[in-house]
């Protein structure tokens, strides 16, 4: 028997939905077997996960809160990935977005909400853009790998954020917190209002509106069409007069702005201060996973982000299961596992496995 792969002539819609769905199911199964093998109660784990994240009102509220930054970072990843720009800098741009947003929030928080909230959000976007500017310039005009530059800038941003809170008595640090340094609280006027279970904030609404906006940009505008040409056939784009350098720069800047908005939303909606620990939990990297699982579709990203948000959110509940305590790292492990399976499954969206009976005659 001989196996060979044949490119599918057309990709049917059920392939697109089936593959991520099967990856989640297989991921859960393999994860369950792994839990049983390591002496944990898999059923109890999954039951707790669904209770803390998906089936109770408070659980859903927490899940949506956890999903909010992931929606932004997934959008940031997918606009860039669509034109084969593999920016992994959302992590750092989120930090700098958070730094800018909290800086402005502390300064203008005492004015009215109508002024303070937009100012904080715009500052976040600007922060993300500032952090992406150099990698985007280098990529567009020198061809410098955006993978390495954005990755390196993530660490620079992380240390910068740590410095602002732990390193010295800065504008961002709460002067009353000397033993356990913390970020200075924003005035209430700069907070994103909460609704629902009192944990969901307007950042979620903003994320959904942004998702529609990105969908519109990609599908309904000339810019979006040029992006599609550039992503699918870079040479054709070049010959047909798409301004490749300018497009590359602009797409990366949009990506940076979206990641910065994630930071602003976390600062103004959840932490209400620059909180290095709350921001540095891999939200940028997780966004890439969400975007990939969603096959770079903005609406798909929202659904996957909610699923992943729940996974992240349930991790701490698992750790406090008493005698059946499961390390919270199970959430990360499952995320990685599901993504790996989805990547493997992706092949079968694009290709068909052909099995021919004829035995190859070896020379």
């Amino acid at each position, binding site marked *: 028997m001989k196996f060979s792969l044949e*490119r599918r002539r057309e990709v049917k819609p059920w392939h697109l939905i089936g593959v991520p769905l099967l990856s989640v199911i297989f991921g859960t199964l393999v994860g369950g077997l792994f839990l049983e093998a*390591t002496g944990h109660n898999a059923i109890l784990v999954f039951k707790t996960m669904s209770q803390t994240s998906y089936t109770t009102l408070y659980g859903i509220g927490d899940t949506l809160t956890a999903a909010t930054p992931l929606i932004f970072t997934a959008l940031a990843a997918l606009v860039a990935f669509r034109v084969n720009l*593999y920016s*992994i800098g959302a992590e750092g741009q989120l930090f700098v977005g958070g730094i800018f947003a909290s800086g402005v929030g502390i300064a203008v928080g005492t004015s009215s909400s109508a002024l303070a909230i937009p100012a904080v959000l715009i500052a976040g976007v600007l922060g993300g853009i500032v952090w992406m500017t*150099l990698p985007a310039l*280098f990529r567009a005009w*020198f*061809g*410098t*790998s955006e*993978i*390495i*530059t954005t*990755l*390196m*800038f993530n*660490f*620079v941003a992380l*240390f*910068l954020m*740590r*410095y602002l809170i*732990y*390193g*010295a008595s800065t504008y961002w640090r709460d002067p009353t917190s000397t033993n356990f340094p913390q970020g200075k609280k924003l005035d209430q006027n700069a907070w994103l209002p909460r609704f629902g279970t009192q944990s969901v904030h307007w950042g979620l609404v903003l994320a959904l509106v942004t998702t529609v906006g990105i969908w519109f940009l990609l599908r309904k505008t000339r810019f979006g069409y040029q992006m599609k040409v550039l992503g699918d056939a870079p040479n054709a784009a070049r010959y047909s007069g798409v301004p490749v350098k300018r497009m590359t720069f602009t797409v990366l800047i949009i990506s940076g702005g979206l990641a910065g908005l994630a930071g602003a939303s976390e600062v103004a909606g959840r932490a209400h201060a620059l909180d290095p620990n709350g921001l540095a939990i*891999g939200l940028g*990297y*997780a966004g*890439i*996973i969400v975007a*990939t699982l969603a096959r770079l579709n903005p609406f798909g990203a929202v659904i996957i982000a909610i699923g992943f948000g729940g996974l992240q959110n349930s991790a701490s509940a698992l750790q406090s299961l008493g005698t059946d305590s499961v*390390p919270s*790292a*199970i*959430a*990360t*492990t*499952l*995320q*990685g*596992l599901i*993504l*790996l399976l989805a*990547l*493997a499954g*992706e*092949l079968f969206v694009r290709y068909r496995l052909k099995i021919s009976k004829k035995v190859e005659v070896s020379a």
Partner: protein
Amino acid sequence: MTQESVLVLTLAAAIGTGTPLIFAAIGGVISERAGVINLGMEGMMLIGAVTTFLVDNKTGSPVAGFIAGGVAGALLALIHATLAISLRANQIVCGLALTIFGTGLASFIGKPIEGQGLTKSFGSLHIPALSSIPGVGPILFKQDVLVYLSWFVALIASLYLNRTRTGLSLRAVGENPATADAMGLSVVRMRYAHVVAGGLLAGFGGSYVILRIVPAWSQAGTTNGIGWIALALVVFASWRPLRVILGAYLFGVALQANFALQAKGITVIPAEFLAMLPYLLTVVILVVLTANRRTRGAGAPAALGLPFVRDER
């Protein structure tokens, strides 16, 4: 025992700090020379570290622990190879998935041993005559056997890439897989072998961290992001094994100088800013290399990151 100066001690410690970077970055060079970028290195190092810890404490043999750590890294790299080469997945996303998976799995496995210490490790091996050279001796020749192994690995990798037939073939696979294929080379087999070898070395890097640098398992701080530094080092060294040594020790000196200054209470430059330096330096070097017309793409394998499909060129 003679009292060494602070400078000598700092430099000797810098060699230790640089060693896991040498192992991992040489692994990165080998994998990337075959055209496969490995963003899963951090995950492979962590899995290598936790495996080394468990095997070492179980068997009481650091040698067994070191080898087991390498094998664990290689197994994770095999997943990377399968996905990136056979299943033509996006190498960037795939590597990232492996880092996330590896980090999660390592801290899951490591949870019961959190905070425990390593019972047995390698000691220093003083090389006769050479170790008594003032200055240089204590820095270079009073290290452990794995430090000497890392030099050997870099040397072999350099000779392999530049002086052997297979090494030449490997470069063809990374530069122009279609031509390599037409020459009769198996692109798939070459890529598999070198990605797995790269994972083995990344695993060794993780092993070294647990054996010689922080001999206790901590899920947060064991590799402390050095898998990413190793990735940067590959670029920093423009894909040349011997330059990796130089780069790794530069990083090592930067980190150790940071500690030494902090210990003395010298805070002219905040520690966080010193910690940024290696990352900024990597960006500067990469930009200078690519901005300059002559050196553009210097050393970077032309087919890096691209899957090879024979019938769809």
